């Protein structure tokens, strides 16, 4: 095996870290954790600012084919995710850059690629995902919102839910039932729409910590153009699967943990209990070391995923492992960190908070990666059925 980055990659990494380190200094005070770009105007403005900074360096088109404006390699994309995770920076639209762009490259028409890829690469257009419905979560194919074809238009009706960032997004990508008589998995169409379209109503749902991350999206007789279909009409399920296949390395989540560990070690060194630094408490040392071992373990596995992606292999099972392990590690860290802060574990970002309130933040925000993008139970199903070949639930 060879764990070494090439000289070129090392140089790239340095460059990326430098840019991110500078951006971090401009982070608004209210920006506390990885979903903060959606929570308020300041956060969203910072997201757009970072995105522009990345765009002008070509970093939102990493690993794309040159003919569509691609720059760099898949590994560069991983390195950017790493640095963004470490400095807790937004700037790379998970829906546009990470999910839709590779899907368009794999399944989009030439016209749609030419229209949207440049806008994604330049950070001009931000996307949201209109998939889940009140009665179709894990079992997405059971959705009921409809798209009825009328010439070159679809008239779309229904309700979507849990749509992250829909209150700021310019465009959305959604799936709708387009053939009421069609067989399951052959009755859905994948369409892009402008969020400013008539009939689109976005209503916030507060996350448990009170922040505004996701929304309900009501669609009332929304006209969507047939030219914005991705893939074939009634074959949107295949596109959903293509998109779901573009698992990210989750390197940003992993490096968020790396940073959390560093900050926590510093905190333990500087905080005295009974006249002795917290870091000298054997129980604390043991817990933090256990955490550090797990982080390093998942970091190396995330690099294995990156290594596979760089070779154009999917590495889906390993990617599912990283998603489950890292998100549950974040949950555990939220618990350990709030415990060790004592009564301060409950304090939100404020002048009283320790560690800028990040422990309290993670205690709640950990469920974002655990539940979204296919819950961890669904990931475990995927590993069992497709990875281990165990009988599939009917």
């Amino acid at each position, binding site marked *: *095996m060879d764990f070494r980055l090439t000289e070129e990659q090392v140089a790239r990494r340095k460059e990326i870290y430098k840019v991110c380190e500078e951006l971090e200094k401009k982070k608004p005070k209210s920006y506390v954790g990885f979903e903060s770009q959606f929570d308020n105007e300041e956060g969203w403005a910072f997201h757009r600012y970072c995105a522009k900074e990345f765009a002008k360096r070509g970093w939102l088109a990493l690993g794309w084919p040159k003919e569509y404006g691609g720059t760099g390699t898949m590994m560069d994309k991983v390195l950017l995710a790493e640095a963004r995770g470490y400095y807790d920076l937004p700037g790379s639209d998970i829906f546009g850059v990470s999910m839709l762009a590779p899907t368009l490259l794999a399944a989009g028409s030439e016209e749609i690629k030419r229209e949207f890829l440049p806008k994604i690469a330049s950070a001009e257009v931000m996307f949201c995902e209109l998939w889940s419905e009140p009665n179709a979560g894990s079992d997405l194919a059971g959705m009921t919102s409809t798209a009825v074809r009328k010439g070159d238009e679809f008239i779309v009706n229904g309700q979507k839910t849990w749509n992250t960032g829909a209150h700021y997004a310019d465009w959305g990508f959604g799936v709708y039932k387009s053939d009421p008589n069609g067989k399951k998995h052959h009755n859905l169409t994948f369409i892009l729409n402008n969020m400013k379209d008539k009939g689109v109503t976005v209503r916030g749902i507060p996350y448990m910590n009170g922040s505004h991350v996701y929304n309900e999206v009501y669609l009332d007789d929304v006209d969507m153009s047939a030219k914005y279909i991705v893939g074939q009409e009634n074959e949107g399920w295949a596109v959903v699967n293509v998109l779901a296949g573009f698992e990210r390395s989750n390197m940003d989540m992993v490096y968020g943990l790396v940073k959390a560990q560093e900050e926590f070690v510093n905190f*333990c060194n500087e905080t005295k209990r009974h006249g002795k630094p917290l870091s000298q408490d054997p129980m604390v040392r043991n817990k*933090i*070391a256990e955490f550090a071992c797990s982080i*390093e373990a998942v970091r190396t596995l995330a690099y294995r995923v990156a290594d596979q992606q760089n070779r154009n292999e999917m590495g889906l099972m390993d990617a599912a492992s990283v998603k489950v392990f890292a998100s549950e590690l974040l949950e555990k860290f939220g618990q350990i960190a709030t415990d060790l802060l004592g009564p301060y574990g409950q304090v939100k970002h404020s002048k009283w908070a320790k560690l800028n309130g990040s422990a309290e933040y993670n205690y709640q925000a950990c469920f974002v990666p655990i539940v979204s993008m296919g819950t961890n139970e669904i990931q475990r199903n995927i*590993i069992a059925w497709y990875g281990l070949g165990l009988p599939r639930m009917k």
Partner: protein
Amino acid sequence: MDLRYSEQQEILKKSARDFLTKECPKAKVRELENDAKGYDPALWQKMGELGWLGFNIPEDYEGMGYSFEDLAMHIEEVGKNILPGPYISTVVNTFAIVEAGTEEQKKDLLPKISNGNCILTLAWLEDNGLFDASGITLKAVHKGNDYVLNGTKMFVDGAHVANNMIVVARTKDGSGEDGITLFLIDAKAAGIKTEVIPTIALDHLCEVVFKDVAVPAKDVLGKVDKGWPILQMLIRKGSILKSAESFGGLQAVFEMTVAYAKERVQYDRPIGAFQALQHKMSDMWITLGTSKYLLYEAAWKESEGEPNSKEASMTKAYINEAYKLITALGVKLHGGIGTSSDHDVPLYYRRAKAADTAYGSTDYHRELVAQQIGMK
């Protein structure tokens, strides 16, 4: 970056697998657990002929001169199959001679080890059970041209069959890292008494009592009073290689469990169709993946000569727990049959506990990790 086994490594692994499947079936593993020697001398000879005992010995001393990473991959297969006897400890302890031995010590012992004619063990732990330097209390007193050793060592792997032994002793008052000296001695020297301790893996760890054992000064390994860094090196490399063995073992149990879940039928369907078991097997897979690259990062760094004591300790601490977790799940998912000594899974379950204390327990290594991630 390329995190795959190379083609050559795949061949290396396959030949180890084929050899052990043929030469060391589980019936032999069980037989050797209750055998007085605890290893098969004829098998040891064959391993010597194949070069297995000289993987990490330079070619100048009749070894194979393989990389550390190759060695780890080979030992992964050893762990997958289970190989009773002091094989891994002989290989690990050999590094002390390779890296710290005099020319004479190397010429004398390395070819013998490589050819399968010398079992080399390490007398390190004592009845205090401590892994750090303060645990070393066995005294070696300088008298004329000799050092005289008095004290007791515990958990010495295969001491009763070893030809040579590295003894970790105190040559100066105190309990710190300074004042510790390694001696490379004849394991059958006068004044040494060994007794096999009944342990969970029935792996023939011994109590070794030293009574006025005279050791010529030329048998010091490395420098007088400066033995701790050599022992640390052995702990580091041993941690990685022991983890490689454990990683092999946990894979074996994972594979057996998934295979069994597909064939065992209850309630008219294979038990692998029950989600309660599927998710446990998925967790086993996740644990396997996280263990694998942690282990090989540490092994690769060792091969490249890069600092890796943090990664080595992380690997040992993590895989100690992973091995126990996976083998315990393996037992449970097999139901009743998984609890029988006739079944293979408990062979691994018991070894997971034994592996966990070899070259330092989880808590010992977590403390080393704490120091190296900046905990003051």
